[in-house]
């Protein structure tokens, strides 16, 4: 693997058969590769998450990030689309599952795909990664500081999502959780509770919480970035996907 890749914007078939925009990055010069669906954070289908998508390709995985806000604001810039999606209360859970299913099907059908698909999501995408892994047959899932897997949103929040830890018995694959010990959403107590729920359900998982890191510590262009946590977190991701997805 020499980091060579090709990346482009494509259309994929998402929930309800809708065609939605997606960003795909594939490794070049590799006969066989595993696959990753990348779920963007709440600020949207942005440059930072496209960079993450390319990073997976540079490490030998085909990675595909669906634009979850495509229907809310087709053709709009990522920040305008995120504002439009927010005004509607966020991405409905059912639609998210349909879009990830479409992304996974697209990846499985690629020439060279080994048929194994993992999912990773950041921020709101962390919760959505767990949701997808509890709703679809996948090989590995990573939840990066997803809020409201455990616990209700605060009173008065017009968020159209609720806790989904009760779905744990349906988790279809091993789960890696990466969290900041200083985060409040999810709080360390909520992370512990999810850990307990998964253990009771007999689901394979490994959680890591980083001291000195809060929410969004992977975001290199935000003050929340924590280099030690992010570097170690990436290593955990490579080890984890290497075990369950590699070519």
């Amino acid at each position: 693997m020499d980091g060579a890749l090709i990346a482009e914007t494509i259309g994929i078939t998402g929930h309800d058969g809708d065609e939605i925009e997606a960003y795909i990055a594939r490794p070049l010069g590799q006969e066989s590769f595993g696959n990753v669906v990348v779920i963007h954070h709440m600020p949207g289908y942005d440059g930072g998450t496209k960079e993450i998508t390319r990073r997976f390709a540079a490490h030998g995985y085909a990675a595909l990030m669906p634009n979850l806000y495509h229907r809310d604001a087709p053709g709009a810039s990522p920040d305008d689309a995120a504002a439009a999606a927010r005004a509607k209360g966020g991405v409905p859970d059912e639609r998210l599952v349909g879009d990830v299913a479409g992304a996974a099907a697209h990846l499985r059908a690629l020439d060279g795909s080994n048929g194994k698909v993992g999912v990773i999501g950041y921020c709101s995408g962390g919760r959505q990664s767990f949701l997808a892994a509890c709703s679809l047959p996948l090989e590995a899932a990573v939840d990066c500081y997803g809020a409201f897997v455990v616990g209700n949103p605060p009173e008065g929040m017009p968020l159209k999502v609720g806790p989904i830890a009760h779905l744990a018995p349906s988790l279809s694959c091993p789960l890696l959780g990466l969290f900041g010990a200083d985060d409040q959403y999810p709080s360390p107590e909520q992370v512990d509770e999810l850990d307990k729920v998964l253990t009771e359900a007999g689901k394979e998982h490994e959680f890591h919480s980083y001291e000195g890191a809060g929410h969004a510590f992977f975001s290199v262009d935000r003050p929340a970035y924590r280099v030690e946590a992010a570097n170690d977190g990436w290593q955990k991701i490579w080890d984890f996907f290497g075990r369950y997805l590699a070519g």
Partner: protein
Amino acid sequence: MCTYLTEKIEVAGSGKGAQGWFTLTDATVYLDHPQHAPAEHTLNIDFLNPASGPSARVAVELTAESARALARAIEATLESAPPGLV
């Protein structure tokens, strides 16, 4: 965190966005991750005209301190306006 905390109001006026001036019909005020400001959370205001699409938007991301100062300045300006103007 992803708060989604949002106040929505109707407004009358105009704003200047990427495509020039447009009529404003709505505004949303929320506390969440900024797109651009170098802070973990900011008070964000979107001035909008949803009927003209998601790009009809004037956005600001302010620190909490700046947002409070802005709110005070708006109130003070309106309070000190000569009678009959507002």
